[in-house]
């Protein structure tokens, strides 16, 4: 199923939650809506599902305008942030609900419903839970029930609102991989909302980065990291330090910060304009060396091991810089010499 959103606008009183949003999702894609809270991502998801309504603009699904179609006729699977399971129904009844409420003409017979629900629960690896109530199972299991319930009516578009938000890190990881496989296997088109960039970058085919009611950039994870479209995306993704700088001649100058200038050829994204800019430098883009007292430009504020390197936080003229260094190279309080190897610049 393809989804086309054009010029979608939604106001809540004086607040513009969505501002002429444009988004095109292709059949079979796994798309993440990523952004800070209040950026409009959940509102967009709810409008797609028919749970909220736009003030202007259109939503088309497979080329059909959805504005007159009520939520219950859209056959879109929706997984709610806190699952919204029916508390008084068993797991089995929760999953069977969408089939049981169909009009008599299209409702499968009881035995068929039982068969389909059981198969789905097995597929979700929660077959043994069918007689439990939602409050009697764990968070990860609830999440699977919510997913099974959404999939029972065989929707081809699946929407998930912060699907992993309420789970422990460990459970979260397992479910992510599993959801990805499920998406591919069932031939779904899926959109999920998240504020966790790692989740978005790891899971999605394409990520729509949202900012203040607009899609700032819609691209593959690789493209987002390599070529952020603006300062917001560059700052939001990849833990970059954000420093004021000035482009002049063939170099990027950081004064008054105690950093050496960076030649223009080291910039990862060319900006023609001269003058004040914002420079974004990621943790692995720093050269770092211990210095004797009085000679360095930064001081180590904390170190912690992170995989093959040590993650260091440094104080550079009042700015907190995150960088990667070899194990054992630096200690707390040590002066050192910090030098950027690369940077992305955007007009300030």
């Amino acid at each position, binding site marked *: 199923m393809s989804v086309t959103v054009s010029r979608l606008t939604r106001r809540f009183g004086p607040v513009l939650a969505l501002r002429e949003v444009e988004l095109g999702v292709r059949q079979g894609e796994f798309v993440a809506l990523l952004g800070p809270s209040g950026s409009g991502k959940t509102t967009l998801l709810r409008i797609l*599902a028919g*749970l909220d309504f736009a003030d202007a603009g259109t939503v088309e699904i497979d080329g059909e305008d959805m504005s007159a179609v009520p939520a219950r006729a859209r056959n879109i699977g929706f997984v709610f942030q*806190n699952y*919204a399971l029916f508390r008084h129904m068993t797991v089995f009844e929760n999953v069977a609900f969408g089939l049981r*409420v169909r009009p008599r003409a299209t409702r499968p017979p009881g035995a068929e419903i039982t068969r389909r629900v059981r198969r789905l629960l097995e597929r979700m690896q929660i077959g043994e839970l069918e007689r439990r109530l939602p*409050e009697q199972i764990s968070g990860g299991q609830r999440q699977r029930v919510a997913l099974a319930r*959404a999939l029972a009516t065989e929707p081809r578009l699946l929407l998930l609102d912060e699907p992993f938000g309420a789970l422990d890190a460990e459970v979260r990881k397992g479910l992510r991989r599993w959801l990805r496989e499920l998406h591919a296997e069932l031939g779904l088109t899926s959109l999920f909302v998240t504020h966790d960039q790692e989740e978005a970058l790891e899971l999605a085919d394409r990520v729509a980065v949202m900012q203040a009611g607009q899609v700032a950039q819609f691209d593959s994870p690789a493209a987002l990291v390599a070529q952020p479209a603006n300062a917001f995306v560059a700052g939001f993704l990849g833990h970059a330090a954000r420093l004021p700088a000035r482009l002049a001649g063939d170099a990027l100058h950081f004064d008054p910060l105690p950093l050496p200038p960076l030649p223009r050829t080291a910039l990862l994204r060319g900006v023609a304009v001269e003058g004040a800019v914002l420079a974004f430098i990621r943790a692995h883009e720093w050269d770092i060396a211990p210095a004797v007292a009085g000679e360095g430009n930064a001081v180590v504020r904390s170190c912690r091991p992170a995989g093959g390197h040590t993650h260091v936080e440094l104080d550079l003229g009042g700015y907190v810089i995150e960088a990667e260094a070899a194990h054992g190279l630096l200690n707390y309080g040590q002066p050192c010499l910090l030098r950027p190897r690369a940077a992305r610049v955007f007009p300030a």
Partner: protein
Amino acid sequence: MTPPTAEPGWARALLIGGAALLLGLFLLLPLAAVFTEALRRGWAPAWQALSDPDAVAAVRLTLLVAAIAVPVNTLGGLAAAWCIAKFRFSGRALLLALIDLPFSVSPVISGLVWVLLFGAHGWLGPWLQEHDIQIVFAVPGLVLATIFVTFPFIARTLIPLMQEQGRAAEEAAATLGASGWQTFRRVTLPEIRWALLSGVLLCNARAMGEFGAVSVVSGHIRGETNTMPLHVEILYNEYQFAGAFAVAALLALLALVTLGAKTLLERGGTPRSLAA
């Protein structure tokens, strides 16, 4: 050693004893007095008072009035709770305050307003007389006054609960293809059923026990417009104390049963106990 945020044992005992004494003397003793007075001369006179035709008529009328007032307020309460708890609209706070209004009005005023409307000298009195319709000093007046007095009970019980439950479950039902009626019947109603039952019980207890409002609109015609509480008053004023207390004891029993059922509902009405 007493923890720093607890009172020493003697103070604790003193406070518990004080509260028990207060509740016992002030609230429980009157209840005991009702039953003692009712059975002062044994069961026979009490039974006689209750099987008197006027008393039986009063019981029947009380049941009839409650049987009309409670369903009306159940429907109204459900409708009000649905729109107030599940939707945001301007005037919502005002609506909520207006629903509470009957709680802050004297029962006598709750009866008075109906007399002002439908009484012999009321706005519609002459018209009603012309068409030979009797509302005040007749059963319709009793029903109206009772509905007024018990108006907020059910809405008031449901609104906080339904607000807390939010609308996510209903929205989930909508995305799964359920119609409005299916959503209400299969999702909303089961989640509020214990609170609803509790509200209905309270509403019913008040409807059957209401005195001030029905006293104003009743006209006190024995065997015709006398509910049980009114019958208690009449017997008392005629110095038939045993009879008065016997009927009062019956009403007190109703109150006790209501309280017990409500406690059971509050304790047992969690989803876990519903697991079949």
